[in-house]
């Protein structure tokens, strides 16, 4: 049987990959996808604890997170389309109107 810690480790690994992706990637859509990966990694932790401790709360939380992710996706892609209409580029380094 797979122990709890493996699931948590998997979740941590995915979360870190996602976080690294957000830092490394330069493309708005790619960054957005990395954020989705982070949210998903979190879900593994929730479901793992939920299943191992026989408590449905964690899975309910995951359900809520998925809804939130869907809402975030809709708005995020709306933003991306809006910016693309005006600039025809999604590279965040090109986003130079606002200086750092």
């Amino acid at each position: 049987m797979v122990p709890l810690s493996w699931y948590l480790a998997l979740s941590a690994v995915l979360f870190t990959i996602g976080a690294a992706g957000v830092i490394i990637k330069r493309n708005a859509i790619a960054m957005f996808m990395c954020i989705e990966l982070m949210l998903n990694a979190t879900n593994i932790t929730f479901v793992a604890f939920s299943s191992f401790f026989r408590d449905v709360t964690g899975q309910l939380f995951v359900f809520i997170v998925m809804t939130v992710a869907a809402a975030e996706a809709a708005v995020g892609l709306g933003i991306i389309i809006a910016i693309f209409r005006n600039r025809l580029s999604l590279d965040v380094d090109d986003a130079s109107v606002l200086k750092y």
Partner: protein
Amino acid sequence: MNIYFGLQTATQQFADVNLWLLMPELIVASAGVLVMLVDAFTKRLDQRWLTGGISLIGLVAAAVSCVWLWTSWTGPTEAFFGMIVLDRLRLSFTLVFLVVSALSVLLSMIWVEWERLPAGEFHALLLFATAGMMLMASGGDLVMIFLGLELLSISTYVMAGFRRTDVRSNEASMKYFILGSFSSAFLLYGTALVYGATAMANGTPGTTNIREIAQRLDTALYPPLLFAGAAMLLIGFGFKVATAPFHVWTPDVYEGAPTPVTAFMAAGPKAAGFASFMRVFLFGFPFVVAAGTAQRLHSAWIAVLVVLAVITMTVGNTAAILQSNVKRMLAYSSIAHAGYVLVGLVAAGAASDLGQRNEAIAAVVFYLLVYSIMTLGAFAVVTILARSGDRRTEIEDYNGIGFDSPWLAFAFSVSLLSLLGVPLTAGFMGKVMVFSAALDQGYVGLVVVAVLNTVVSAYYYLRLIVVMFFRERSGAWNAPLVPASMAIALALTVVGIFYLGIFPGRVIEVFQASPSVISRLLGT
């Protein structure tokens, strides 16, 4: 077949519904829906008045119901299985949010027409964001805080990008979206870890209810995960309230977003972030005397927050000096103010005595109220002066306008002086209260740093006033028209600043008073 696996007790087969406790949130959310409906069936020119008016009525009604909950509610203090709680923290913050939203509505009613933006959608989003903020303050469970936060954040992302044809607005929206979601992910991971860590050695599953978390800290099955989770939560909230290492998004977003939205963002989400921050850390990881996990966790987060407060104040103030754009400058100033609020948060967290803790919480709420009013006042003037499209937001644009538009300059100066913390203004009282709370807990060094920072901040606040009154204007100046709703908003902020600065006693008294139902329960 028993289909209730995994739910702890049989009593959970029914839902613990209590809509009265949810009244303010319900009113605001319904007003949002109503605004959308009205918007769909009215002519364009009527929309801004109607939607703005409905929003204002909804906000006032919510405030009334909030006061009613505070003074005459006699029922339970929790509903929906602890998802919603009724306490002073919630009600006082709710009032702050309502003030912020009402002022934002006043600011934006005419502005949407200037910019020819869809009024109904804007006001609906504003109201949904307000509902989100209120849920953040009222949530007794991490899931509610997460949901409220997302409700707030997602609508703010849209509002930041509301001027769709403006590249700056698009970019601000995108940056806010990416970094906001990034921080939400951290918050969520923290929640997951806390949920797992609070399981117990007899097989009892973990919890996301804040009150239960506090009870379980010492029996937590995985203390290291608890620490990691708390750290993640800290990072998440740090992003949301823009404390120093996590503040990088603030200046860009505040500069790029349309000014009324910036005003709302600087005041509302920041206060809401602090509401949840306090809810989770003060009530979830509270002060305990007995040595153990809970005690170590408490001292750890206090120590981290002290450092964060110092960095935040210093970074905010020093960076603000270097800015040439007023919106950016105010953005850094808002970062600095987050630092001052953190000082109060540290004081509230470190308080061992319940009475002192409540005073410190009241101080923080008062500070946030004051800060919201003066920031909104400042941004209101910036909105008016910037004209449509936010064209004039450089400091040079303010050269010598003081005597041409005396009222605007006066209102702006009052807001700036209050942000600086000059006596007789609200900002001064706020700072005094927060710093004295910190002094009560013995954080002398922290307060010294804060006061030094205030001195530094004098440079950039006063520079703007000097520019307005004593610098020659190069181009011709035609004074902007100030529409009635904006004039009302400005008048309210100025009056508010002086009222809270000179007669703060009553408001503080209110913030320190428990809701009647709780004081009755406690027998006081």
